[in-house]
C-alpha cells in the first residue's frame, strides 16, 4: 500500500477518540484491540511489531483466526477463555510459538502459583515405552518432566503432551536434576562421573568428575542445586572416600569448592556415609546433606548443614535411634522433616532453634516404641509450598500446618495435621518410589509400573 494512503489512514485514526484502538485482520477475520493490550508482552514482541511495522491501515496476519481470538483473550486477561477447551493444547502451543507468547501460555496453564495441595486430583497417567520402570524423575519449575527409566531418559514438555527419549551411557540413572528444560544433570551409583545431558540432542555436553585420592572412579550419590550452584555428592568407586563438590551454575559449571571431604580410616562409620540427598535452604544459605547406613546394629545416619562459603558444618544431627528413612527441609516453614525408619512416623525440627540434643518433634503418633521393625523403610518425604508430602506404601500423606491465631509466642508448639491424599479409588497401589513437583502438578512413580502418575491442581485442561 502506498505510504501516502497509510498516513492518511493514520491521520484518520488520530482524529478519532480511540487512537489507541488497533484493528487487525487475521486470516480474513477482523479483530479490534488496544495498543496497550498488544504491547503488554513487551516492546520487542511480535504483537508490538505488528502495530509499529505495518504500513497498512489494517495489518494482516496470515494465521488461523480462531486460535488468534484465544490468544487475544490471553493477552487481555492473562488466562485462556473457556472455549479454548475445544482446541488441542498442541495447536495452541505451536501457534503461541509463532506469536512468541508461549511463556504467557505456560504461565496461564502450568504456573507453580496455581499449585494447591488441597486440590490435587490423581488425573493423568504418562505411559513409558519399553519394560524399565522409572528410577529417577526431575521437574522444572514450570512443569517440564524428565523420567529416567533404564538407560533412557524420556522428557515431557510442560503440557505433558509431547515427549522425546534419549539413550544415555548409564545402565540406570539414580540421580537426576533438571537444570533447564533442555539440560539435566544425571548420575548413577554404579557409574563414574556426573553427566550434563542435552536432552534435545541426546548428547553429553559435559562430564564432571571428582579426582579422589585413590584415583578410582567417582560415583554420584546425590545431586542438588541452588540458583547459583550445582552440588554433587561423590563417592569413590572403592567406597573409601566421599565429598560434596560445588560447581558454579553461572560460570560454566566451574568447580568452586569441595566440602565435606572424608577419607575413611578404621571403623569410623559416620565418615563413611556419603550424602544421598542434597537440598539447598536459601533462607538460611545452608546446604542440607543427609545420608544413612544400614548395618547389623540398625540404621544410623546424619544430617549436616553446610555453609558452603566457609566449608564448615554449621549444624549436625546424628541419627542413632529411629534414623530417618528420608528427610527434607522446607524454606517456607523453616523446618526440616523426616520419616523415622522404624516408626514410620513424620518428625519435624524447627530450623530456627536447632541446638537441643534431640531436635525432633513427632507430628504423628509419638508413643510408638522404637523396636526392630522398619515401618518407615522406603517412605519418602518432600516439602512443597507450605505442605509436607510423605509417601507410605502406595499412599501419600499430606501434612499441613494449622495456623491457630496470631499470638504466637516462643515455645508454642506448632500444630500439624495429616490428610490422606486422593479419593477412595486412588488409595493403595504399588509402593511409591519417587515424588516430585512442577508447575501446578505433583508427579509420582510407583514400583514396577512403567508410567508416571500426575496429580493436577486444576481440572485437566
Amino acid at each position, binding site marked *: 500500500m502506498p505510504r501516502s494512503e497509510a498516513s492518511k489512514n493514520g491521520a484518520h485514526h488520530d482524529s478519532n477518540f480511540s487512537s489507541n484502538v488497533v484493528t487487525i485482520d487475521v486470516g*480474513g477475520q477482523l479483530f479490534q484491540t488496544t495498543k496497550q493490550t498488544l504491547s503488554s508482552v513487551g516492546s520487542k514482541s511480535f504483537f508490538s511489531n505488528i502495530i509499529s511495522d505495518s504500513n497498512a491501515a489494517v495489518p*494482516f496476519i496470515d494465521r*488461523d483466526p480462531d486460535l488468534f481470538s484465544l490468544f487475544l483473550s490471553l493477552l487481555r486477561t492473562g488466562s485462556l477463555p473457556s472455549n479454548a477447551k475445544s482446541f488441542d493444547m498442541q495447536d495452541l502451543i505451536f501457534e503461541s510459538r509463532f506469536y512468541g507468547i508461549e511463556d504467557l501460555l505456560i504461565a496461564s496453564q502450568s504456573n507453580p502459583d496455581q499449585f494447591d495441595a488441597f486440590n490435587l486430583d490423581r488425573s493423568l497417567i504418562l505411559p513409558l515405552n519399553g519394560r524399565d520402570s522409572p528410577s529417577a524423575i526431575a521437574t522444572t519449575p514450570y512443569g517440564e518432566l524428565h523420567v529416567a527409566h533404564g538407560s*533412557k531418559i524420556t522428557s515431557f514438555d510442560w503440557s505433558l503432551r509431547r515427549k522425546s527419549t534419549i539413550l544415555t551411557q548409564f545402565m540406570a540413572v539414580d540421580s537426576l536434576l533438571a537444570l533447564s528444560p533442555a539440560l539435566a544433570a544425571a548420575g548413577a551409583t554404579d557409574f563414574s562421573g556426573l553427566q550434563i545431558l542435552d536432552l534435545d540432542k541426546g548428547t553429553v555436553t559435559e562430564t564432571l568428575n571428582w579426582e579422589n585420592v585413590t584415583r578410582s572412579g567417582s560415583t554420584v550419590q546425590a545431586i542438588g542445586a541452588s540458583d547459583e550452584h550445582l552440588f554433587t555428592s561423590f563417592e569413590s568407586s572403592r567406597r573409601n572416600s566421599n565429598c560434596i563438590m560445588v560447581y558454579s551454575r553461572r560460570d560454566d559449571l566451574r568447580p568452586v569448592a569441595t566440602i565435606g571431604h572424608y577419607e575413611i580410616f578404621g571403623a569410623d562409620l559416620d565418615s563413611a556415609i556419603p550424602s544421598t540427598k542434597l537440598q539447598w535452604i536459601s533462607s538460611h544459605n545452608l546446604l542440607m546433606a543427609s545420608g544413612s547406613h544400614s548395618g547389623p546394629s540398625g540404621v544410623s545416619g546424619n544430617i549436616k548443614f553446610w555453609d558452603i562459603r566457609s566449608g564448615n558444618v554449621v549444624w549436625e544431627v546424628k541419627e542413632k535411634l529411629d534414623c530417618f528413612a528420608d528427610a527434607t527441609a522446607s524454606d517456607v516453614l523453616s523446618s526440616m522433616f523426616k520419616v523415622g525408619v522404624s516408626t514410620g512416623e513424620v518428625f519435624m525440627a524447627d530450623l530456627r532453634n536447632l541446638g537441643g540434643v534431640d531436635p525432633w518433634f513427632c507430628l504423628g503418633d509419638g508413643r510408638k516404641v522404637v523396636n526392630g521393625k522398619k515401618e518407615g523403610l522406603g517412605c519418602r518425604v518432600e516439602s512443597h509450598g507450605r505442605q509436607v508430602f510423605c509417601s507410605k506404601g502406595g499412599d501419600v500423606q499430606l501434612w499441613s500446618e494449622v495456623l491457630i491465631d496470631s499470638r504466637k509466642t516462643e515455645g508454642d508448639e506448632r500444630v500439624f495435621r495429616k490428610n490422606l491424599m486422593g479419593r477412595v479409588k486412588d488409595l493403595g497401589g504399588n509402593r511409591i518410589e519417587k515424588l516430585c513437583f512442577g508447575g501446578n502438578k505433583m508427579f509420582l512413580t510407583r514400583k514396577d509400573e512403567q508410567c508416571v502418575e500426575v496429580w493436577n491442581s486444576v481440572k485437566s485442561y
Partner: protein
Amino acid sequence: MNGLNPAAAAGDRIKLNVGGKLFETTVSTLRSGGPDCLLYALSNRSGHDPVFIDRDPEIFSVLLSLLRSNRLPSTAKRFSNQELIDEALYFGIESQLRSSLAPSRINGIDASLFTTVKPSSDAVVSDFNAVESDGSLWAAHGGQITVYDWNLSHTATSRTHFDFINSVRRIQSDIAAIGSLQGSGLHFYNMANGRRVHSIDWVDPSDVRIYKARVHAISDSIDSVFASYDCYHGENCVLMIDKSTMEISSEIGRMPGNSAKYMVPTKLTCISDLGLLVGSSITSGAFGYSGYIRLWDPRTRDVVWETFEPGSGRSSRFGDSLADVDVDLDELALFKICSKSGDLAMADLRKLTDDPWLYLKEKNSSLRGVGRKDGRSFAIHRYRKQAFVGRDGELEVWSRVEENGVEMIVDEEMYRRNYMDKVEDSERGVIKKIEGGGDRLFVTREDVEGIEVWQSCYNSGIASASSRGCSLW
C-alpha cells in the same frame, strides 16, 4: 491480462471463498505447494473478488493451516487420513500432507505398537517387503499378494496361481516377484491389473536333473533381480535377472546342497554400493544352529568372502553359532545374532577377515543372560542405525550411544540393549520377521494374523487416570 497476474507479490493478500466460507491468506502461503498445484494457479488471479472454490470449507481450513504452519492442526482428526489425502490431491499439496502425516523418525527405545495391518482373508502373512522409497508394504498371505501404501491403506490384492507364497519382493512400482516352495519358478505379477506378466525357471541344458527348481529368497538392486533356486535333490544357485529385459543375465554360486555349508540361500541381500550379493542360510536342529554367510561378486560370480558356523571364527565362541543375519546397507556392516548367548555381533563389510566379528557387550546387568536359552527362534533386522531383534516373542532394540554429538568409534561397549515391547506384547507369538520401511517397523509372528506396525511418536500418549492401575496398555 485475462485475469492472470503473474507479477503478484509474495506478500500480497488474497481472498478465497471455499464452499461459501471466506478465507484470507497471502500469495506466498498459497504458493508454498509448488508451481504445479491448483492453489498456485489461483494465487495468480488478480482482482478483489474472492476466488470461489466449490469444496468443503472445513477440510480446506485444515489444509490452509498446514500450508501456514507446516503442521496439521488437531482439527484434522475429524477427518480420515484418506479424506485429507483426497482433498490434498485436489489442491495439489499432497507432498506437504504426506510429510506431516508421516511418522517421526523411528527410535527403538521409544516406540510402541501403532496398529496391526490385517488382510481380509488368509491373514497369516508368510512374507512381506517394506519398501523404504515410498513407505509401502507388500505382503504375501496364502496365495495372495496385498499392497498397502505409505498411509497403510489397502491399495490392491492379487490372487496368484500359488496356494502358498513363501517369498515376495517389490521390484518395480507395480511389479511383485514371488516364489513358493510348492511350485517352481520365480513369477512376476503386475499389481495394477493382477496379471502374471513373466516367470523365470532355472534350467540347465547340460544337466537334465535341474528342473522344477523352487525359489527360496528374492532380492533386487536398481537394475537386477536376484533369486535363489533349489532343486529337489538340493542343487542350488542364484540367478541374476535383468530388470529391463527380464532375462537371466548370470548364474551365481551354484552349490550341490549336500551339506549345511552348501544349502540354498534363504536370505539374499544385494549391496549396490559395493556391488556385492550376500546370501545366507541357517538351519537349526537338535544339535543347535548351523549356517553360512557368503558374499559374491555378481560380475565375476566369484565368492568374495564366506564364513561357516560352527567351524570358523573365534574359538571362544565355538558352539555359539549364528542364528540370524542382516546386512546394514547404510553402514555397510553385517550383523548376526548368536544362538546360544543371544549376543549381537557386527562385522565391517569393508574389512572382512577370518574373524571380523565384534561382539557387542551386554552392559545391562538386568538383561545379561536373558538370551541364553536353547531352542529359541531369532530374527534380526537393522534399520535406521538400530538393530531390532526378535527373540521368540520378545522384541528388543540395540541402539548406539552418542557422546558429545559425535558418534563414537566402533567399540564393543557403544551399544545398549533395551526391550521395545511390554511383557504382554511378547505373549502374542514367536516373531518370524522384522523389517523397517518409511520409519515404521513391521513385525510378523508365527501363526498370528496380520502385520504389527511399530512406530515412534512425539505424542506423549497421556491418558486419564480414572481407571486404576496400568491397564492402559
